[in-house]
């Protein structure tokens, strides 16, 4: 059962029950009250009539003492009274012991005749032939063998009861309908946001992450809608982030596959050639040379990949790194490359130490110097500096090499992007150096700033946080 249906039904049931209980109490109270009033009137009237009858009888016997008392005389006394009262729906009966002298009352219970004495009244409320009567019976005080019975028609009370009940039933039905319609409209309006939320939730669940609820209310549902939108925002963010990450990964894998294809083509081709072709010594040397190069390129690629995955899985520990020692390690590490390419490395240090990971910083510098070496031509100088600017410690690698344009600068951090593919490949680049640099900078919460001009050279700055040094 739906929420609104539950509220609807329970409200209606509670209303009907309460209304009916109230109506019942009201009706029965007013009925009893009227009954009581009738009873009072009846007893009072009975007493008046009784005394008047008794007086008449006494007077008659005093006026005509020789006229013996008999039933006929009694009849003449009571009859005019009875006729008079009949119009008011009041009926009399006079009995001598068990014998009827006069009666225009309906047949009543014979028990009434058992009334004892004038003070001892018997009061009874009885329904006879569809009409309700109020009986009051008592003996005449001077003539105890006579019983006077007073009957009052109170059918009106019953009629009133029935009609008022009918009115209540009609009223309750009408109210129920009105109440039902209004509760229905109100509930429908109140729960509409719930339906909207519900529909939207299933839409979002089925992948429409950009959808939002548009509910402007100041109640709990409005709050719910707002919170819901906040949740949807964060879900969308998360989904986008995941999509981006997975796209990047896919891109990385695609690029990697492409990167591997060239050396693999070389290896497959030359090994097949060596195996199957008729070749001379010169061709053999060329072929094995290419084989060696290709294998070396794959090795480079795999070691850089390992560096990257090592970086990704590594838990960083920041220690004080002695910059001077770092630079001497760099010089030793880069010596073979520099010698081969006939380049000079100059280090200028104005920092004592830096908070960082020594191995990672060394790897960062090595990658930058390797890049600089690939961009430079013979006899050029590569400069590595450590200094402070605006309280930010900075590591800087600059060269006077071929440089690159702004368009290329944007892509330089992308894995496998190379400014000059054939040149870089020929010099052993695999296109992952800057990715590694960016990752390491990221670990140190440092910013990467690359300035470059074509044919003028490139300067790469790693700008560290203020807090990382003193």
């Amino acid at each position, binding site marked *: 059962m739906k929420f609104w249906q539950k509220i609807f039904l329970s409200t209606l049931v509670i209303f009907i029950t309460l209304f009916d209980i109230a109506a019942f109490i009201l009706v029965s109270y007013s009925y009893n009250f009227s009954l009581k009033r009738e009873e009072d009137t009846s007893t009072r009237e009975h007493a008046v009539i009784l005394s008047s009858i008794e007086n008449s009888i006494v007077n008659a016997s005093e006026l005509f003492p020789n006229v013996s008392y008999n039933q006929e005389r009694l009849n003449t006394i009571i009859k005019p009274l009875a006729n008079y009262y009949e119009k008011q729906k009041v009926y009399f009966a006079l009995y001598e012991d068990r014998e009827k002298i006069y009666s225009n009352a309906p047949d009543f219970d014979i028990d009434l005749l058992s009334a004892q004495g004038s003070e001892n009244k018997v009061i009874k409320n009885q329904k006879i032939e569809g009409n309700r009567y109020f009986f009051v019976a008592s003996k005449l005080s001077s003539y105890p063998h006579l019983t006077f019975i007073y009957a009052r028609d109170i059918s009106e009370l019953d009629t009133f009861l029935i009609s008022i009940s009918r009115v209540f039933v009609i009223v309750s039905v009408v109210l129920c309908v009105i109440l039902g319609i209004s509760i229905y409209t109100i509930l429908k309006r109140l729960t509409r946001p719930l339906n909207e939320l519900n529909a939207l939730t299933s839409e979002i669940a089925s992948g429409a992450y950009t959808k939002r609820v548009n509910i402007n209310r100041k109640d709990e549902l409005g709050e719910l809608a707002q919170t819901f939108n906040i949740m949807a925002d964060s879900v969308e963010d998360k989904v986008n982030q995941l999509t981006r990450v997975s796209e990047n990964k896919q891109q990385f894998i695609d690029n990697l596959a492409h990167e591997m294809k*060239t050396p693999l083509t070389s290896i497959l081709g030359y090994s097949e050639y060596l195996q199957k072709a008729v070749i001379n010594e010169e061709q053999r040397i060329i072929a094995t040379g290419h084989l060696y190069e290709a294998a070396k390129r794959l090795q480079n690629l795999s070691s850089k990949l390992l560096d990257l995955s090592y970086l990704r899985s590594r838990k960083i520990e920041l220690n004080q790194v002695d910059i001077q020692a770092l630079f001497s390690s760099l010089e030793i590490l880069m010596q073979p490359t520099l010698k081969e390419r006939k380049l000079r490395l100059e280090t200028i240090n104005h920092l004592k130490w830096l908070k960082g990971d020594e191995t990672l910083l060394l790897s960062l510098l090595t990658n930058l110097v390797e890049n600089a070496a690939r961009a430079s031509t013979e006899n050029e100088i590569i400069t590595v500096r450590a200094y402070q600017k605006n309280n930010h410690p900075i590591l800087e690698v600059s060269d006077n090499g071929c440089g690159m344009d702004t368009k290329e600068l944007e892509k330089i951090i992308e894995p496998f992007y190379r400014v000059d593919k054939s040149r870089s490949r020929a010099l052993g680049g695999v296109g992952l150096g800057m990715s590694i640099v960016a990752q390491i900078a990221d670990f140190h919460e440092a910013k990467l700033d690359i300035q470059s001009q074509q044919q003028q050279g490139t300067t790469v700055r790693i700008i560290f946080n203020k807090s990382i040094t003193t």
Partner: protein
Amino acid sequence: MAKILIIEDDEAINNLIFMNLNLVNYECKQAYDGNEAISILEQWHPDLILLDVMIPYIDGFTLMERKIFQDIPVIFVTAKDQIADKVKGLKLGADDYIVKPFEALELLARVEAVLRRTKPVKRKFTIENTVINLDEHLVTVDNKPVNLTNREFELLEVLINNCNLALSREKLLNLVWGHDYFGDTRTVDVHITKLRKKLRLENHIKTVYKLGYRLEMQK
């Protein structure tokens, strides 16, 4: 022999194609980027161009679009194996498409196929006293015609097309007898022996250890 221009920026792969084509006596020139290719084409008119798509300065597709090669047939050689690129290459008028990494035999077969279609040359070969005319289905030894069965002739043709390159027995079975042939590789040995004897090529059709057979011809 046919002249072929190789345009490929990766030196290793350029050399690989060059050396393989050299084996079967094609005359080749190498270009490493778009500009170099254009300058070579100004003085030299090859019969076929092998073209890498991703080359510096002017890429392969652009070269095709600019109609630099005029009516010279082109085979794309590239690592891009996406269908869209293949379609684009072929729409631009390329005659075929080879995806890296490729086998030497595949390369030679495709080059041979395109050349046979676009530039029919006389395919007459002389090895010592044996003269083989593939076009006329005629083989003579000391000017005397030799009778060859169809299979033997086909085998000879495959060996010549891939001369100086070892072919495995399975490969030969595949190329000569077809994919659906369920024969033993020994069939190949029998036919090779017959060919050697009939054509007196004992010193030229060599058995390569663990591999198969190779027809060696001077360039």
